[in-house]
């Protein structure tokens, strides 16, 4: 997939531009259903996705990655901020206005069981988007059968029901449905995490092939960094609704800057007993705090092993360390003094209130290599 790697710098208008998006869910209580609090599911995230690239979105459950995905395809309306797709702000469009755009963006869901209507035949499930968007009836069947073949199923399966398929096959049906209208962008929300490893790889290969054949753009949401790395050109790490690191894929694995990323990487199991024994595991303590009442300052500070006072008080801005690598941390890892000096607070990716003064000053001691290299 490397051949498709898009360099951040070579610009051009991005396919998708997410600007300072916040998606909050109100918590209502009482007889009058007053809003008493908000879940800060996505809290001021800025991203862009170039055509043809795959952006990986990782983080623990509850970090807002799925919400961001749903906000991007406008299953949710952002509370604030803009989602710009092909230069058009779609963040406030109504159902009707969105309909034509739906052809361009599709979603693949996590649960292969819940994402297919159990009462409909496969043909009808995949054919529905065609029907909605007025594709001729005679064409529909043919197109559905093509799609079935595309995702590695037999066209003969046209009249079967979802319950007659295994998990992996169902996920293929989900992909076929997403592809029905030749979308440009596919948001895949944990498409493989409910599958066995052996089936996971089938799916990953399939998605890979499809990208090549159909020049698709993916936003790939997952909690497994191994999987993300395999498919992504760039990776965004989220924590408690915030974007904390954004980096070209390989760079992230070799040189994580944010301690959270480091911890995530070190948690990925390695199917190699010797290496597993050798490597240093950073086991994060505790769980992700509540997004209703996120911690002050750096949201990761209560679990961070490099935490100092400033982390508790000041929210670190996303800082660009060059080469398209951004991170929000007061104590960046794997960064030497010079890089640090050159680093700039990224204007585009940073909340308005942050300025150059909030730029990190002290690198964390020691170099982290969460991933040992085997031969």
């Amino acid at each position, binding site marked *: *997939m*490397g051949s498709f790697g898009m360099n951040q710098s070579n610009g051009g208008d991005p396919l998708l531009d997410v600007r300072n998006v916040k998606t909050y869910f109100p918590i209502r209580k009482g007889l009058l259903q007053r809003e008493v609090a908000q879940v800060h599911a996505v809290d001021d995230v800025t991203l862009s996705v170039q055509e043809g690239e795959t952006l990986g979105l990782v983080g*623990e*459950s509850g970090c807002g990655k799925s919400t961001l995905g749903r906000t991007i395809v406008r299953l949710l309306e952002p509370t604030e901020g803009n989602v710009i797709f092909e230069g058009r702000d779609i963040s406030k469009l109504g159902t009707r206005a969105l309909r034509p755009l739906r052809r361009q963006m599709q979603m693949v869901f996590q649960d292969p069981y819940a994402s297919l209507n159990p009462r409909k035949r496969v043909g009808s499930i995949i054919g529905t988007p065609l029907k909605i968007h007025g594709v001729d009836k005679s064409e529909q069947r043919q197109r559905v059968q093509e799609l079935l073949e595309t995702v590695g199923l037999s066209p003969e399966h046209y009249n079967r029901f979802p319950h007659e398929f*295994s*998990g*992996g*096959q169902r996920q293929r049906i989900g992909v076929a449905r997403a592809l029905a209208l030749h979308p440009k962008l596919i948001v895949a929300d944990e498409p493989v995490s409910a599958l*066995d*490893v*052996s*089936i*996971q*790889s*089938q799916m*990953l*290969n399939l998605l*890979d092939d499809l990208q090549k054949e159909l020049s698709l753009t993916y936003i790939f949401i997952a*909690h*497994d*960094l*191994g*999987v993300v*790395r*395999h498919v992504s050109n760039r990776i965004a790490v989220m924590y408690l609704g915030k974007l904390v690191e954004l980096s070209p*894929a*390989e760079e992230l*694995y070799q040189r994580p800057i944010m301690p959270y990323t480091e*911890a*995530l*990487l*070190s*948690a*990925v*199991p*390695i*199917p*190699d*007993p*010797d*290496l*597993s*024994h050798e490597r240093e*595991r950073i*086991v*994060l303590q*505790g*769980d*992700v705090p509540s997004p209703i009442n996120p911690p002050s300052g750096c949201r990761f500070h209560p679990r961070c092993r490099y935490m100092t006072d400033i982390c508790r008080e000041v929210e670190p801005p996303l800082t660009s360390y060059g080469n398209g690598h951004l991170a929000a941390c007061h104590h960046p890892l794997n960064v030497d003094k010079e890089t640090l000096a050159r680093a700039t607070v990224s204007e585009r990716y940073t909340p308005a209130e942050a300025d150059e003064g909030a730029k990190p000053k002290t690198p964390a001691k020691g170099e982290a290599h969460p*991933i*040992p*290299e*085997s*031969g």
Partner: protein
Amino acid sequence: MAERLIEVKGLKVQFATEDGIVRAVDGVDFELSRGQVLGIVGESGSGKSVTAMTLLGLTRDRNTRFEGEVLYKGRNVLGMNEGELQEVRGNEMSMIFQDPMTSLNPVYSVGAQICEAIQIHERADKSTARRRAVDLLKQVGIPNADSRVDNYPHEFSGGMRQRAMIAMALACNPDVLIADEPTTALDVTIQAQIIELIDRLKDEFNSAVILITHDLGVVAEIADEIIVMYAGRVVERAQTRDLFYDPQMPYTWGLLGSIPRLDRPKQERLHSIKGTPPSLIRSPTGCKFRPRCPHAFDKCMEEPPLENRVETPGHLDRCWLSVAEKRQLRERTLSGEEAA
């Protein structure tokens, strides 16, 4: 040699269902000794969970048939009556399950559910049991265990619930801890915590562990021995290092090859096992893996026995390919070069 705790001999478990007889476990043998960690690996439907539950007699049902023996310290679990089984369960062998949310009773506090086992098995009084429950929660790393002991499961996060499950399983110092996909429903970060916890507690409690998973990566670090199951059968069995560094069964290669490796440069393509697991009602003839195996040949129409075919003793597999052929073929699979 450490004390032999469990010995499974020719275990078969069959369920009668509306659609026919499901041969969920179809001939499984293994042994487990004190201090040992045994990994059982396989896809869904490979019979690994059924095997584990059968060890505790949890699959007993009117529609279930058993063959073979499950010996716990020489006593056949399959032949025990309910009372004897209850003595073994929780007390000598205990189990943690995949989904900690549904595996804890929502209407009792976590503490009460831990105390329950203690009170039953150790005839401890309420306050003793409670004190022990708090200790256990501390041991599994639950902060403020004194107060959290009275919380209900829904007030715990997923990781904490699984810790509570572990505390409950360890409440009576069991000899054997069976963990059935304990991390599948959890985030990777939490998964790491839990695996580490099991590894640590195994030593503290001087237990043996059976760890069931579909992800070989999970067991690589802590297992001593690994059993790979496919369609109800053991297809490969070896010491952990042997299995990882000298896997004999094409299915095992498939499993290993399908994991995206962070420790290696990014592969162009992942290996994957084509097709889907076979029906347990009408399973294929011969080698069960034959329909999905890229290396199948005529002989595979006959089922290979589970035998030691390599130099290392105790490394068993079910594949007709010669060892040399295997070693030659597998590298391509493992590196992901060979696509399905």
